[in-house]
């Protein structure tokens, strides 16, 4: 194979380039330099994979690439096809713009001397995700799962607060449980097959399934590895770590964790389904049935949990639980169409959810760094681009036409129509209910952030001219009671307003005026850095554009996915 095209080196280059980038970060102990290097590497990876993707789609080929001098059953291998190249391209794209959009918050949230470590972790995270996408070897997959786990935990805890530490501990324990289950399954698999490479595993497994030898261990292997990956990608009953980790981390981390890290494991699972286990065998062992049921439950329960949240990032995080439910439901449909719908939803969620998280971060930046709904009232007027992006993201998640979420729902229902009579009604009902629930929790937030600015002080400030003292002070006094009674106004500036109101309730007129001006001044100073940097605007615009792009031109993407899955 001396005539191997040069571009077939690109997956190998991508993995090694990101890995080496991560390893060399300690030499640049400066966050800003590290960020620039990181961005350069991400762009290089994105471009390389995009070229590879275009080439593989047009030629309709796939290839294996030896990592060393030894071929298939002995040495390590990676494998590339249109599916893998597409996913890697999108991952690099999303990661680049997620970092760009959240870079203001990274510099604010991460202690200065540890910023280069944050970008180091980003490099390793991208490296591990690309390796998970391209791997052709189960043990390589496990090794990079480990890197992925650690790096993902590190980007959560790099925001130095008690909340994130607790969230990280939870995340780490659940994530390690997942890795442990995967490793146990892998050990058992090697024990009964004697292989680790996907290529050589499949014939052995098929033959084993036919002869019914080692049937029970095989079932357990399938169940345990799938379960491990489900825990790590937060399928419904194993989602408990997700809202904390995604809700408390800095915006970029939330965006990347939700948009990409969860999907890396799902893509690995899909690859294993096609290249190792075969869908027929999984259906026979009822693994897909279990995934299907959990996916359906997740679709509904994730949304119900999201309904109860009053914290915009936690709500968005619960929405991710629901969306992961969609993807697993598609996989559980056990048909080509379902798999394609799931793959498409991976893409549409990967470009929508980071936008939502970044927009939420942008809105919080102009609302005293509070993520509570009551503090976010009218926030979109203070940061218009974030407001627009949040609304578009929400509409996309609900599944309004023209946005990326719509085609995936369309494909899911198409997939349902192609499946058996047991699944079809379930999927259609779940889709309808879940869509309604999505609308129920996203729309109020959208309305809320676009409400006119109605801070308590302003109405009073104007009104106090022609009102008596007691009358003028009243709403604020009530507001103070409100803030106190709710008891969680620690971060909200409502408290400071309320306190000012209490202080001046007695001597209203002129004194009140001055005090209000004072608090407003403090308010402005507090919001002096709004975080609406050019980088943020660019990232939001790109995410919005790509959302429309995927929502309108879904045809070619779907064709590429179909081709990729056929070649898998």
């Amino acid at each position, binding site marked *: 194979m001396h005539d191997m095209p040069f571009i077939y080196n690109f997956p190998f280059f991508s993995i090694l380039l990101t890995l080496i980038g991560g390893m060399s970060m300690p030499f640049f102990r400066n966050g800003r330099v590290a960020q620039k290097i990181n961005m350069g590497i991400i762009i290089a990876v994105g471009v390389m994979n995009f070229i590879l993707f275009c080439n593989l789609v047009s030629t309709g080929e796939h290839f294996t690439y030896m990592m060393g001098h030894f071929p298939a059953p002995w040495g390590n291998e990676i494998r590339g096809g249109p599916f893998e190249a597409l996913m890697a391209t999108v991952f690099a794209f999303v990661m680049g713009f997620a970092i760009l959009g959240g870079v203001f918050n990274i510099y604010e949230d991460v202690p200065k001397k540890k910023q280069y470590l944050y970008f180091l972790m980003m490099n390793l995270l991208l490296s591990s995700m690309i390796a998970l996408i391209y791997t052709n070897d189960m043990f390589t997959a496990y090794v990079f799962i480990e890197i992925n786990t650690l790096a993902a935990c590190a980007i959560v805890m790099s925001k130095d607060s008690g909340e994130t530490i607790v969230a990280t501990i939870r995340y780490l324990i659940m994530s390690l449980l997942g890795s442990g289950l995967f490793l146990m399954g892998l050990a058992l698999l090697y*024990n009964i097959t004697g292989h680790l490479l996907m290529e050589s595993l499949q014939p052995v497994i098929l033959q084993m399934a036919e002869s019914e030898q080692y049937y029970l261990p095989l079932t357990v292997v399938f169940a345990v590895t799938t379960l491990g990956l489900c825990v790590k990608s937060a399928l419904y009953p194993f989602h408990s770590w997700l809202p904390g980790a995604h809700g408390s981390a800095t915006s970029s981390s939330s965006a990347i964790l939700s948009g990409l890290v969860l999907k890396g494991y799902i893509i690995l699972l899909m690859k294993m389904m096609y290249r190792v286990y075969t869908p027929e065998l999984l259906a026979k062992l009822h693994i897909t049935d279990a995934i299907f049921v959990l996916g359906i439950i997740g679709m509904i329960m994730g949304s119900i949990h999201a309904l109860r949240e009053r914290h915009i990032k936690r709500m968005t995080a619960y929405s991710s639980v629901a969306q992961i439910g969609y993807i697993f439901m598609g996989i559980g449909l056990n048909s080509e169409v379902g798999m394609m719908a799931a793959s498409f939803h991976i893409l549409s969620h990967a470009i929508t959810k980071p936008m939502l998280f970044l927009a939420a971060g942008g809105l919080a930046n102009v609302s005293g760094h509070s993520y509570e709904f009551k503090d976010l009232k009218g926030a979109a007027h203070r940061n218009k681009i974030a407001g627009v992006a949040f609304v578009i993201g929400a509409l996309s998640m609900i599944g309004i036409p023209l946005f990326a979420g719509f085609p995936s729902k369309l494909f899911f229902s198409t997939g349902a129509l192609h499946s058996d009579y047991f699944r079809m009604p379930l999927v259609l009902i779940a889709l309808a209910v879940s869509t309604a629930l999505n609308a129920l929790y996203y729309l109020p937030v959208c309305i809320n952030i676009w409400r006119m600015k109605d801070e308590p002080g*302003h109405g009073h400030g104007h009104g106090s001219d022609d009102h008596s003292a007691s009358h003028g002070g009243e709403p604020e006094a009530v507001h103070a009671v409100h803030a106190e009674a709710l008891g969680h106004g620690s971060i909200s500036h409502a408290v400071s307003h309320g306190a000012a109101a209490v202080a001046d309730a007695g001597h209203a007129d002129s004194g009140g005026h001055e005090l209000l001006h004072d608090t407003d001044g403090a308010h402005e100073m507090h919001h002096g850095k709004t975080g609406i940097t050019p980088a943020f605007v660019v990232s939001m615009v790109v995410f919005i554009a790509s959302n429309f792009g995927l929502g309108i031109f879904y045809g070619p993407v779907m064709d590429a996915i179909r081709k990729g899955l056929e070649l898998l």
Partner: protein
Amino acid sequence: MSEKHESHETSETEYKGSKNPFVAWVNADPTPEEAPWTEEKLEALRAGETYVREEKPVITEEERARRFNKVYKPLAVVLCCAFIALLVFVCLYTPPFGATDVPTNNEVSFKYIEDGLADTGATNVVAGMILDYRAFDTLGESSVLFTAVMSVMILLRKDRDGSLVNDPAEDAALAKEEKISVQHRDVILRTMAGIISPFVILFGIYVVLNGHISPGGGFSGGAIIGAGLILISQGFGSAKTKKFFNFKVFTIITSCSLLSYAALKCYSFYTGSHHIETGIPHGIPGAILSSGFILPLNIFVGLIVACTMFGFYSLFTKGEI
């Protein structure tokens, strides 16, 4: 003026919360249970009475944790036992250990054992496997160590920017402890550390350098060297270790070893996938300078592991290296 008046009115209804539950919810107003005011209370407030907050029975965090544990602990035990039982049960159906006709005795392990020496030049088959046949996995494993130590650095390393781990009281206590331990050295520990640690480190180096000809290698040898460093730090205090092993040295060694490892392996992966000979002689089997890249790779892995061990130790005890 009337417009302003209106805006005042709306803001008042705002803070009372709407009667319509849907509107209240859209406004993100507190739910009726949370809302501390009713019409009567507002009237009372207007009349100048002070508002008395009703005490709701508060469920404390501990109480909640206790209730949670009451269900959770037994459930976890039952679940774990069930899982253990399942795995043990599965083991009954797996190929018998030590039998010759098990699936793991296939062409893969056969080639590793039969052709290992010729392919890799290493008399230690395991070293040949992990550093030549499946070197990509080992590169990943070394990166796992690197990721781990860097994560711990994010979590525990002290910086002067007011991070959470910077507790001045704790710092003072540590400094005091250090001072006392410097003044009152543990004679036994110190003497023994002085005698043993050179041998420990020397043995570690031996294990690393002979990784390709005898059992051992980078991972085990590196762990031994790391243990030796920890022993020195225990016996003579961190100030002594710092003289030759500070944060800068740590970073340089770790990063350089990893980068060299990656560079060597890049070369061998690239040539391998293009079916080009590497041109690295395998040497005489059994000699120290043999088996191509395996010796330098072992050295790099050993350095990474030693640094990681010592890094964990010092980050967890003092929060710095």
